[in-house]
Each structure stands twice: as C-alpha cells, then as structure tokens.
C-alpha cells in the first residue's frame, strides 16, 4: 500500500492555488498525530485528469467563480462514485460570494443533486479527534469576516452513508494557511479537523 498523498485539485477557472500552505499543514498534522504513512509533499492534479482517481482525498478551494468544463464535471462524478472524497472549501467564507454560489451550483450539476447539511453527529467528527459540537469554528467566522456567520454545519453529498463531497463555508483554507512550524504558537492545534477528514477518507 502506497503512502497517503494530499491532493490539491487544479481546475481551469478561478484560483485553485489560493491556499498554497494548506497541504503542507495538513501533511504535518497527519504525520504529527497519526501513524499513517504520508508523503512529505502534496500533489496537484487537474480535475479533468484521470490521475485524480489515484488519490482518496482531494482538496478544492478558491475565491473566484468556479465553472467546470464538461471533462472536469465528468471526472468529478467518476471520482465520487468510485470512492473518492472531494473536500471543497470556500476561501471567501461568504455564502453570498461568487465561489460559494458558483461552486455549489457546479457541484449540484455534476452530482445530480444539491448538497445537504451534514449532521454534526456524523462519523466524520469522531473519525480521529472528537468534535462533539460538529465542525470547529474558524477565526474568520468568529471575527465577523465574510458573511459574518458562524456556520453550524458542513454540507455534503452522500453516497449511501459515505461522504463523496464535503463542502465547507467556514474557510478552513485561511484557518490552515500558515507554515506548519508556527503551530507551536497555538495553544490548540486548529488543523486537527483536517486529520479527521484524512482518516475518514482513508477508512470509509
């Protein structure tokens, strides 16, 4: 079994590379808290590429409008159907923003159904660390940036009881977008939820 590689999805529209430090931070947390074999650097894979199927977890973010090409849409559908988990995070943390509106619309079109609220009792929140209150809040939510909302839950597209697409308006891309060496300045590591997502993607 090969080591886990964190995959960032590159899509043709928008700024897919708006959170370049998130992969390193997630990799650091996986290495720090788990015994999962993990590659020291992530991979960047075009959404339309069949290479995406080699990665059990893919991360997609951005600020700008998301418009998927037919090929990207088809690969997204294939990826989710074949067991992949696409984690989409709105880097604008704004439900009135262009990313949220266009990304949710594109996902619904590609998956054939709109995203649904993920219960805060879902296994995702206990897959490694315990988050009894659901998804952890971010500094941007608490500081009133973006839509000035503290989002109560994440959204997801479920295949049976398995998450195929996990969608966040909480802006984890900003929350986790710092150099891993700076974790030592935090009393509680705010990237622990990323470990849950990775473990969930690898075990479900």
């Amino acid at each position, binding site marked *: 079994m090969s080591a886990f590689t964190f995959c960032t999805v590159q899509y043709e529209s928008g700024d897919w590379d708006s959170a370049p430090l998130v992969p*390193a931070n997630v990799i650091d947390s996986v*290495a720090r808290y788990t015994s999962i074999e993990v590659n020291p*650097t992530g991979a960047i894979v075009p959404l339309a590429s069949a290479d995406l199927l080699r990665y059990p977890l893919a991360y997609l973010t951005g*600020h700008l409008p998301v418009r998927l090409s037919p090929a990207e849409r088809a690969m997204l559908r294939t990826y989710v159907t074949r067991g992949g988990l696409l984690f989409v995070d709105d880097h604008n943390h704004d439900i009135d923003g262009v990313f949220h509106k266009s990304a949710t619309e594109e996902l619904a079109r590609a998956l054939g159904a709109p995203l649904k609220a993920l219960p805060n009792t879902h296994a995702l929140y206990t897959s490694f660390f315990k988050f009894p209150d659901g998804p952890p809040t971010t500094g941007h939510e608490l500081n009133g940036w973006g839509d000035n909302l503290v989002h109560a839950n994440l959204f997801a597209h479920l295949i049976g009881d398995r998450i195929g697409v996990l969608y966040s308006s909480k802006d984890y891309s900003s929350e986790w977008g710092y150099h891993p060496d700076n974790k030592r300045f935090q009393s509680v590591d705010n990237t622990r939820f990323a470990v849950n997502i990775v473990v969930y993607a690898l075990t479900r």
Partner: protein
Amino acid sequence: MSALERLGRVQRELMMAVVAGSVVWAACAAVGWFAVLAVVDRFATLPLAWRTAAPAIGALLGLAAAAWRVRRAGAFTDARAVALWVEGVAPSLRYALVTRVDPAGAASADALERVIAAVAFEPPVRRAAWQPLARPALALAIGLVVLLVLPSGAVARLARPVPGDVVAASRAPGDALAHVAITIVPPAYSGVATSRLEDAARVSALVGSAVRVEGAAAGLPVTVRADSLRVVLRDSGARWSADLGMPASPTVLRFVQGTRERLLLLEPRADSAPIVSLTVPARDSVLKSATGVLRLAASASDDIGLVGGAFEVVISSGEGENFRFRTITVGRTALGNVRAATLGGGLRLDTLKLEPGDLLHVRAIARDRNTVSGPGLGASETRAIRIARAGEYDSVSVDGAPPPEVGKGVISQRMLILLTEKLLKQRAAIAKDAFVREARLIARDQNTLRKQVGDVIFSRLDDGGGGGEHAHDDGDDHGALTPEQLLAAANEATQAAGAEPLDFAGGESPVVNINRPLLEAYNAMWDAGRELGIGDAKAALPHMYVALAAIQKARLAERVYLRGRPKEVVIDIGRVRLAGKSDIIGPAARLPRGTLDATTLARLARFDAALGLLATARAAATDSLLLLRAELLGVAPELAAPLGEAVDRLRAGTDATEALVVARRTLANVSSHATPLGAWGRAP
C-alpha cells in the same frame, strides 16, 4: 475496719510505692548517665557535639525508666489483683481475702471477715512494696556522690556545654595546643553577637573583629608567629591566650610549643558596600524646559545596616571648552540601621536656574554603619537629564531607522501619472532641458515599477521565484526571460487582446496564461517609459493610463500579493514524529584535556603530597591543605572553597574522601557533570 477497707488502704499504698519507684528509677537513670559521662569526660575529653546531646539523652533515659516502672501500676488498679498479690505476701490469709473480694463469696462474708481480721497482713505488704526501691535509691545516691566529688565545672560541661570549655578540661599533659577555643567579637557596628569556636582550623569573621585564641597552659610556653599581624600573647599560669584583630587579608597563625605547631587560618569577611539602585527616573531623558518637579526614587540594601541615603545631582552647564559644575544633595534620609530601605525625593527644576543645554547627572547614594574601615558608600547608576536647546525639539527622542534598501523604492503607477500630469502643466514655465530631465526621472521610476511588475509575473511561476529581469541582469542564466522576451510575450498577449477576446485554452506559454493583466500593464509601462525617456510626457500618459487600468484589472481579478508566492513547504516527517536523525549534530568530539600550567601543577603537587601524608600524619596533611587554602584565598578563591570543607572534615576526624576528591578536581580544572539524581534520589 472491714477487710475490703483494709484492702483499699493497701491498694493506695501500693500505687504510691509504684509512683515513688518510677521517680527514683528515672532519677537513677539520668544521674547515672551523667555520672558515667562525667567520668569518661574526665579522662577522655568528649567532643562538644556529644556533650551538647548529653542532657537530652539523659532526660530520655529517665523518662524511659519511669515509663517502665509506671506500667506496673496498671496491675494494681484491680482490687482482685491486689488481693491476690496480698495473699502471696501473707500466706496465712489462706485465700480468705481473695474469696472476700470475689462477689461469689458474699454468702460467707461474716466467716471470711473473721478469718481476715485475725491476720495482720499490712506490715509484710508494706515491706514488700517499698523494699524494691532500695537498690535504685542506692544507685542514685552513688551517682550523686560521684557528681559531687568531680571537680567544679565537670557537671557544667555536660549540663551547659559551650564552645571553648574544652580548654578547661584539657587533659593532654604537656600539650598546650591540644585544644584551643576561639572567641570572635565582631565590630560593634555590625550588631552581630559574639561567637565561640572550638578546635577550629579556620576562622571566618568580619574585618576588624576581635579574635581571642585560648588554650590550657601546659609544659613549655606557647609562642605565635604571624606574618605582619600584631598578636598579643598572654600567659596567666593556667591558660594562655592570644588576642588579635581580624586582618584584611587571609593570614595563617602558627602557634608553636616546643616542637609542636598548630595552624589557624584567619579568613576575613569584608563588609560589603550598600547596593543602591535608582528606580526613578528610569532612563536618561531630555526635557523640553526646566520646569516642574523631577521625581526621584531609589532602593538600597546592605549586609549590615544602612545609616543614611540621599540623591546627588551634578549639574554641568556650558559648552565647548567652558563648563561649570555644581553639586547639590537632595532627599537626605536617615535610615536607622535597617538592612533595606527606599529613598524618595523630588528635584524642583525651577529653582536650579538651568539653561538650555544644561545636563543633570542624578544618582542615589547610601552609607552603611561601618566604623572600622570607614562607612561603606554605595552609589547607584547615574541618569543624565538634559535640558533641550531651542531648535532641537523635533529631533529629540527619535530613534534612527535604517535607511531604505538601495533600489527598492517604488513609486506607484498612480503617483507616476500625477507627476507626469504635473510636469505637463509646468511645461510652459520651464526650460526644455529641465522638462526633459524631469521626464527622464519619471521614466526611471516607471522602469523601476515595470521591473517590479515583471518580478511579480515570474514569482507566480514555478521557477522558485528567482526569475524576472533581474535574473538576466545578474548574469544568472537559468531559463528566465530577458526583458525583450518578456516584452514580446506581453506584446503577443496585448495585441491578441486588442483584436478579440483571448482564448487561453491552450498553446500559450504559462507566462501569458497566468499573467495577462499584468503583462498588459508591463507592456504599457514599457511604452510609457520609452516616451518619457525621450521627453514626450504627453505621449506617455495614455500608456500610463492603460498600465494603471491593467493593474486595477489584475487587482480586481485576483489577489496579487507583491510579496510573492510562498515557497513550497516540504514536511520532514521524521522530525515531526520526533524520529528523525540529524546528520549535522553528533556527540561532541572527545578532546584530550589541555596541558596544565606550571602554577596548577605545583598546586597539585602540594595537594598530592598532603594526601600522601594522610595515612601516617593526618595533622601534618591537614596543615598542608590549610596552608594551600590560605594561599589560594587571595589569588583563586574558587579553588580554595572545596579545600575548606576538606580541612574541616579532616580536623573533625570525619570522612573527607568526597571533599578531597572535589578539591582535587577543582584544582586540576576537571569539569564534572551533575548527577541526574539528587542526593536523596539514589537509584535502588
């Protein structure tokens, strides 16, 4: 009197006998202990520590003896037990008394009473109760007699031992140096009580302390040798004594009697000067004008006591070669011999007639009560308060910032447009040469900004951020585009944009694909710079507007961070999991210890020679180490310290191995590592 009443009287008498027996036995044990110790001390002088513990041990022995006797009283609290004991002493009762006490015998009480009345059991019972006290009483008497016949002071040596009384009990015939007592009277100003030492090898005391060394006179007279110290030696027949003052430097006293010699090392302890710290004002400062009150505060402490304190202010006026100084003292405070105090005060600047440029040097001072070597004066650090001169107000208290990096200043495109527009408005009023010169200056700034934009374009490519025009300028050819190539790419992008909306689906270089708005700005800046370079500011303005619009478009389209793209972070998994290995950090190389210098070797030789004497001449070895310590005290106190402990242990007759090991390691400059376990934490 009935039988039960008679039995009650017997029981009370038995209890009294037991209590009396306890007292006698306790006194016997305590007096016996003292008598034995006193006799032993008479023939072999006991150490002070033993004699100090003697009263407590004697009391414990007495209590133990009393407790042992009192426990028997418990048996006599029961009437039946007493009756049985009486039956044993007076067999003629034939168990009538025991039966009478027993409730079962109540039916024949009259008959039993008649039998018991016929027997007078009290006399034998009284004898049996009191007779056992005879032996301890005799022992107590013997002990008391022994204590009484001992010479005067013998009991006091045990009951109230004091350092120095060993001299009175010295029993070494002909040896006046066997035991010495040292009395130290510190200077009166210190307020420290007089102390006495017994058979010490070294004396540590404040400089100026009066020291008296005493011993029992026996045999030949005692003489004393001290380098330059004045010692008054007296011999009163029974005792000899030497009086001296504690010198300022370590000194060895050599007491000599015939062929015998005893060394005493005098270790002076200097009275430290007061420690003063000025807390307010906390730092140097510049005052705009000499008005108001300058608050002053300080703290002072001393090991003996402070007499007083004050603030000293030195005012310097003038400039160049003409300076005047005056000194004033404010906030004078009597401190009353306290060990720590705070000083406070205020300085009215209005009254000092200060001029601009005058300088105040403020410090706090404190004096201790040393009357021997003069009052110790402690002073704080000095603060400088300057009165600013006119015209320097805008420059005071401004920390200098480093100059900007050469060539890094960039003027924004909007500001360049404003400068160009302003230049155009002045065109009619200035000469052509001046106009062209100004235009070229703007062109230079325009080109600088263009290069900055080029850097941003390339920093967003995956070439590690080292591209841009500078790469070519620096001669580092690693694939970056030249300005011309970059311009060509920009031209291609902008010309295509002018014709029709671009389709960047494929076939373009990554430079164009990612950076189209910035390439447009770059292209326009190039044109603007060229026009400005030839002095045609009017022709440059349209290009500058285009460049500004392109930059705005890029800014609106996406976030452009002029600081560039962060480098890719590669996680060191091993390090994160605390399982990594470092190739650069290894165990420190073991190096041979450096060669010791001649002085250290000589000291080690003396130390080793003294160690060699230990087995055969312990006193001589101790004296050798003491002399070595005396020498080191002046030149290397850190080496002398472990020697002191070794000497003390040797003189006290205890195990000095560890102290000697530490002393030798210190002398040989051998570094030692601390044990991870404390003294109490020995591994099982």
